Each structure stands twice: as C-alpha cells, then as structure tokens.
C-alpha cells in the first residue's frame, strides 16, 4: 500500500445512462484513513457514483485517480484487484452457495492458501454470527446476517478502500446500529478507509470525518459533519 495522503480522487466526473446525464462535474477527494459520507435523497446519483468508482458505468468526461494511479478506463475486476471493495444491496451474496464458499469468494484474488486461511479465521472472529452458519446456503440467511456476510466478504481482502452502498437498507434499527458500530470499528482498529453512501443522514454524520451532499447528480455541499449540520442544508425537506 502506497502511503499517499489522497486515496481516491475524482475531477469533473460526468456520466450518463444513454442520453440522461446522471453525474455532472463531480469532484471529490477521499483521504486515507477517513470515513467519508456521501449523502443524498433517492435518485440523487449516489449509486451511480459508486458504479462509476467501480467502473461499471463509463465516465464520459473527467478523471478518477486511486492511490496515485489513473483508473478512469480500468475494468472493474482490475480495480477490485487494486484494493477497492464494495458492500451494497445490489451486489448481494451468492444465494446458492454456502456461507463459507461466499466468504472465500471474496478473496478470489488471494492465491496464497495460508494467507487465505488466516484471513478466514480473522473474519470468523470478527463476525461470530457467520461461524455458526458456515455450511448453510447464503440464500437462507436473514437480511442482517446477509449484510454481515457481505461486509465480512469485502473485508477478507483487507481493501484499501471499502465502499458501503446503503448498508442499512431494509434492516431493523438494532441491526443498523450494529452495522454502524462495525463501520467505526473497521476504520479505527483496521485503519480502513471507508466511503459511506447513505440515506440515513444523522447516523452517517455521526461516524464520518467528512461529508459530501449530492443532489440531482451534483455535489452541492461538502465539509466536516459540524459544518454540514451548521449549514442548514439538511433542513431542506428533500434532503431529510
């Protein structure tokens, strides 16, 4: 891992679905070791931004830099190999495989068997819920357990950047608290940089170091949580 201060940087990013522009002139910086929140209402372009970072949506204009390397035209699997992992509602678990197989699939790029075993043991320790269900099909897990599995699967790679796309979607409040606790723990104890893409504004600002607010495909405000709270931008009924 190179020790540049800036982990992910995007400059004037434009994307579109066919003719409909989705992101317009999006520039943001993600520093190493911080939790960065991307907040916005439904349809603001949050998920599109995640897809653009992963390379599933092509950038029409603008550049994207990860660890000092230009990744604007890099295919998705290479970006993942470079150390970006995503946890999201869309990229779910593989329902027809056992939990253990799912976990190990997360480490598809790790070919060293010994290292893999170590990482798996670590994952079982951090997520004891999963250890009880190793030989169960992932499709039979509850929503919360599935989110845990997705997080564990992403963390098994020790990614440099972990993107969480609405991890709290459709979960019970108590599980949501648990998810945010894990997010904070991963950041504090494992020094993982996390990009938190969320609708739950209050909780997200509670754990993050910096935040961007995105509306209609544009970043309309950025700052640390206090600044965002003071700015009153969240009082806008569309945002809450």
């Amino acid at each position, binding site marked *: 891992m190179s020790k540049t201060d800036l982990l992910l940087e995007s400059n004037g990013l434009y994307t579109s679905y066919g003719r409909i522009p989705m992101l317009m002139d999006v520039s943001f910086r993600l520093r190493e070791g911080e939790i960065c929140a991307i907040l916005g209402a439904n349809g603001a372009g949050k998920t599109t931004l995640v897809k653009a970072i*992963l390379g*599933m949506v092509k950038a029409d204009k603008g550049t994207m830099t990860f660890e000092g390397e230009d990744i604007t035209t890099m*295919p*998705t*699997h290479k970006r*993942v*190999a470079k150390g970006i*992992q*995503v946890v999201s509602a*869309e*990229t*779910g*678990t*593989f*329902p*027809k*495989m*056992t939990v*253990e*197989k799912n976990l*190990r*699939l*997360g480490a*598809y*790029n790790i070919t060293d*068997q010994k290292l893999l075993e170590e990482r798996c043991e670590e994952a079982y320790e951090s997520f004891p819920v999963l250890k009880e269900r190793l*030989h169960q*099909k992932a499709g039979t897990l509850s929503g919360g357990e599935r989110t845990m599995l997705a997080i564990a*699967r992403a963390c098994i790679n020790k990614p440099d950047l972990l993107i969480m796309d609405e991890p709290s979607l459709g979960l019970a409040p108590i599980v949501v608290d648990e998810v945010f606790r894990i997010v904070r723990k991963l950041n504090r104890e494992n020094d993982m940089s996390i990009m938190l893409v969320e609708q739950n504004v209050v909780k997200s600002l509670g754990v993050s170091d910096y935040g961007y607010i995105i509306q209609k495909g544009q970043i309309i405000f950025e700052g640390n949580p206090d600044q965002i709270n003071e700015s009153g931008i969240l009082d806008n009924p569309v945002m809450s």
Partner: protein
Amino acid sequence: MTIMNRKDGKVNTMKNKKIYDSPFAVILCNLILFLLVYFVVMSDYAVSLAIIAVVIVAVLLVNRFDLINKIFDLYIRHKKTALISGLILGIIYPFSLADNVYVAHIATLAVIYGIACLGLNFQMGSTDMTNFAPAAFMGIGAYSVAIASVKMGLSPWIGMLAGLVLSGVFGFLIGLPTLKTKGYYLSLVTMAIQLAFTELVRIWPFVGGDDGLSGVERYKLFGFELYKRYTIFGIRMSPQIPYLLLCIVFLVLCTYIAMRVYFSRTGIAMNTVAQDEIAANCMGINVSRTKLFAFVIGGIYCGLAGTLFAGLEGYAGPATYNFQKSLMLICMVILGGMDNSIGVVVGAFILAIITEKLRDFADFQQLIYGAVLVIMLIVRPDGIIPWRVRNHDLITKRTPNIAEKAQLKSEV
C-alpha cells in the same frame, strides 16, 4: 432385478460405516449403473421404458435421504477407484452388446450426445447462458470431418482436429456478442445463429446443399479400422463396437475434464457469473473472460461430438444439425440436471434411448418425449441429478476437523 441390487447396496452401506466409505462401495455403484445401462439398452421398448421410469422414481424416493449427494462425495473421495473401475466397465460394455447392430447404434448415439451435453452444460448449467445453437457447433465439427475426408481426401483425424479448432473459434465469435446481451436476448442471438447455420449449409453447394456430404471416411487407428465387423471368441460383433469404445474413452475423458473445470477457480467463477454478474465482477472476477471461456470450451465439446457423429453415420447433412437437435440437447441438459457433469450425461442417455426406442411409434414419439419433459419439470425442476450446493471442503480437499464433522452431523 437391478433395483433390488440397488437397495441391497444401500442397506449394506447403512449398516456398516466402513463399507459405506470404501472403494468397494464405489465399485458396487459403478456395477449397478453398468447393469442398469445394459438392461435399458438391450431390452425392447416396453421393458426399457419401464426400467427407466422405475429407476427415476426410485432415485427420487431414495433421494429424500440425500443419497445422491452422498454417492457423489464418495466418488470424489475415491476418485481413482471410480475412474479406473468406470473405465474398465466402459470398455467391457461395448462387447456385451455383441451383434445387435441397432442397439450398438443407439448406445453410440447416447454416448456422443453425452459429450455434446457436457459442452452445453458449461454454458447452460454453469454460466446460465442458454445457448440454442449446440447443434450448429456439432455441425461445424461434422462438416469439418466431412470436408476433410470427402473434398480434400485427408484423414478424418485431421478433420477432427480442424473441427475442434474451428468450433472453438466459432464459440469465441458467438461469445463476443453475448458479452453485450443477457437472458432472453442472448438466447435469441444464439437461436438466430443456429437457424443461420442450417440455412447456410443448406444453400452452399460446396458442402453438398440439401443432400449433405456422404461417404465420410471412417476413423482408423494405426491401420485398425474402427467401424468394421470383427469376430471375437467366435462371436460376430456389430460394426459400431470398436467405434463405441472410442466414443466411451472420449466421454470419460471429457467428463473428467469437465469435473476438473467445475472444481477449479474458473468453474467457481462461472457459477458466480450465473448467480450474480455484478457481484461476481465486484469479487474481482473477469466476467467477459469467464463467459468467453464457457463458450469456447462448450463449443469444442460440441464440435468433438459432431466429429464423432459424422464418423458414426458416415454422413453430414443440414437435417442432422438443425434447430430440433439443439432443442433435444437442451432438453437433455434440463432433464439430467444442470451444472452437474454426471447429471447431464445421465439425461443425455435417458433421452437418447427413449427417442430411439420409440422409433416404431413415430407418431407418438414427440408426444411421449414432451410428456416426459413436462412431468419431470413439474416433479423435479432441477433435473434428475441436480446441481450441488457449492461447499468449500470438497474443493480444497481439506478434511474437516472433528469439531466441524460433529457440527455437520448435527445439521443433518
């Protein structure tokens, strides 16, 4: 009688744990399968259909105890014994058919369809891309052999090599548009390719047009003709016997490779692409490469089946490799069980035998054929021997430790 055998075996294995987990059980299983195939192929249509029906029902009933999965684990654990005993029985099998020309023909067809289905399974089963053009791939293999031997006077083996290469290239070319299309659209693309292929060979005079190319030279191995009547121990054998032997060797080889692929990283990648393409991509799997691999290896398998088919019939024509043949291969894969190498071969055997046995009732053939499929899809939509849940232990061959074993038992 064969059913009784099966039950005996089961009771035996249940009583004694050690026998259950020994090479002996594998050989017993192989022997039972051998006898089943023998009786199904040899008896006349009524008996053979009855045996097939009874066996399917018995397997479905017995499978409540998860027997099929247990047998599979057994085979994987005693891979060598299974392979060697299977090969020996496979070599004995053709000779047991003796001078029954028709039966030998059916048996060879079934084996060739088995190879084609293994190829189709890479696409349909493992990667979940329904390819409606397996017959076109077979056709490419068959026409390569035919052109090499009829038009150029080359050895059919060179034709086979060319067929394998060509069908692989063709698979790659078909695979390219599939990177852009998914689901129904992909099926439509392959369907169009199948229809285009049949039309193309029909109107192209060089390959014989409607009449096809006949007089394809038979395969020879070191001067030993593989399609000829031989007399062994005073029994006159039907001409297909040595050829059947060759096909069985190819089938065993293909099944082995297919299993290796299934348990490899690529095999896992294919399964993840089938279940969730985006998630697979996020795991760092190269989705395009995986899809292309499925098309190329599947194409090569089907091409091999085609080259063998041309050698069996001595003829390659547009009617043999039409859309209907493609549908039949797809039905075989669905019936046998998608994403399970053994399953698709079983499906190919069953449908090939049913189709041929019902030749006498040409009017009802399609009807019964359809009825079998409808019933199977209602009773057991995953096929007779369905896909297995991907479990980790079997892949790395790591033996589970005692705690895990206890846990496994308690779950069962």
